[in-house]
């Protein structure tokens, strides 16, 4: 499977990072989404959305940013 493109949601306030995540997750045939965010609020919001949609969530620190990897279970 090809590596998912990393979506950059850094520097964005609510609700934009979540909107980006949701749009990616709802694309047909997509089972893996990677999103880069720079604040804890966006990280928590995306994690909550993914858990509610029953996707797995892995958060890695990337410098002062967070790389969130979402996988369809």
């Amino acid at each position: 499977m090809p590596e998912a493109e990393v979506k950059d949601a850094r520097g964005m306030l609510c609700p934009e990072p979540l909107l980006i995540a949701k749009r990616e997750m709802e694309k047909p045939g997509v089972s893996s989404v990677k999103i880069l965010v720079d604040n804890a609020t966006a990280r928590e919001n995306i994690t909550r959305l993914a858990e509610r949609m029953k996707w797995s969530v892995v958060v890695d620190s990337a410098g002062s940013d967070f790389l969130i990897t979402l996988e369809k279970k």
Partner: protein
Amino acid sequence: MKGKKILIVISGAVVGFLGVWLAVAGNPPNMGMCIACFLRDTTGGLGLHRTAALQYVRPEILGLVLGAFISALVTREHRPVGGSSPLVRFTLAFFGMIGMMVFLGCPLRTLLRLSAGDLNALVGLAGLVAGVLLGVAFFRGGFSLGRAAATGRAGGYIFPAATALLLVFLLARAPFLFFSEQGPGSQHAPLFISLAAGLLIGVLAQRSRLCMVGGIRDMIMFGESYLLMGFVSLFVVALAANLAYGKFNLGFAGQPLAHTDGLWNFLGMALAGLCSVLLGGCPLRQLISAAEGNTDSAVTVFGLIAGAAFAHNFGLAASAKGVPAAGQAAVIIGFAVVLVIALASSKILERGGVARAGSGS
């Protein structure tokens, strides 16, 4: 994530209780806590407007910022960022504040007024939801104010430092500050109680991300109930506290620091809701975000302050008697300006923009 849910419910409950109790302790009636009103009083305290009855540097505001700043430092969430359309944010905040001065309260005070039985606030709440719905439509149409980037370290400390300096002036009762001798500005809880309440709310709001318009927005856009739980717990606890203190008085007429002009209560709060959602959060959330080092949010707070100054220097603000014609005109102009900004910042007018946004790309 379960701990977080408990935190948002506790945060809402604490703000709900303090929002009623601070009025019992001396703050104006149905105004134990109000970000818009307290920024307006602080604006007056600095002499930036000269309505003599509305001048007091509110320690709740200072505590809120400093509490959130300390909390953000401790949790390493303090990050100096900025550069996402600061002047546009200033303008949105300016007109949002005009709307709040026409209604007489921010989204937080809307809930506190409603919890005390003020049915004018129910009209305001309907306006708030309508404004958020309109804002959500723009987000679905691709609205964005652009990306913020990391800024120099100094940027993230100016706002909290200015707040701390203002606290020093207040504690010293600096002779250049204005203190109302009568009216709402003269009604306040003891300084250290107000400050402590602000600090506590600042820490809780920073940790829980409590936001009055975010709850409505996330429910509409994502079916997400997290922030709404804070909103609901705030209302329930404030209602219980008002009943317990005998402050609950159901009706439209004779409500403290309110007017009964339904149309302008609705439109004022609709403008406030629209501006808040486009800005990414209510005035409370902007203060917290500014304390976390977001300089765009700090500019937003200055926009709110400028709005309060204009509202009172140019006779736009409502009073218990109603909404002056100039205030009504300002709300209409505000809608026109904000709608132009929203359209210009979204993809709705681009060829095929709606279709693209609608197809989820």
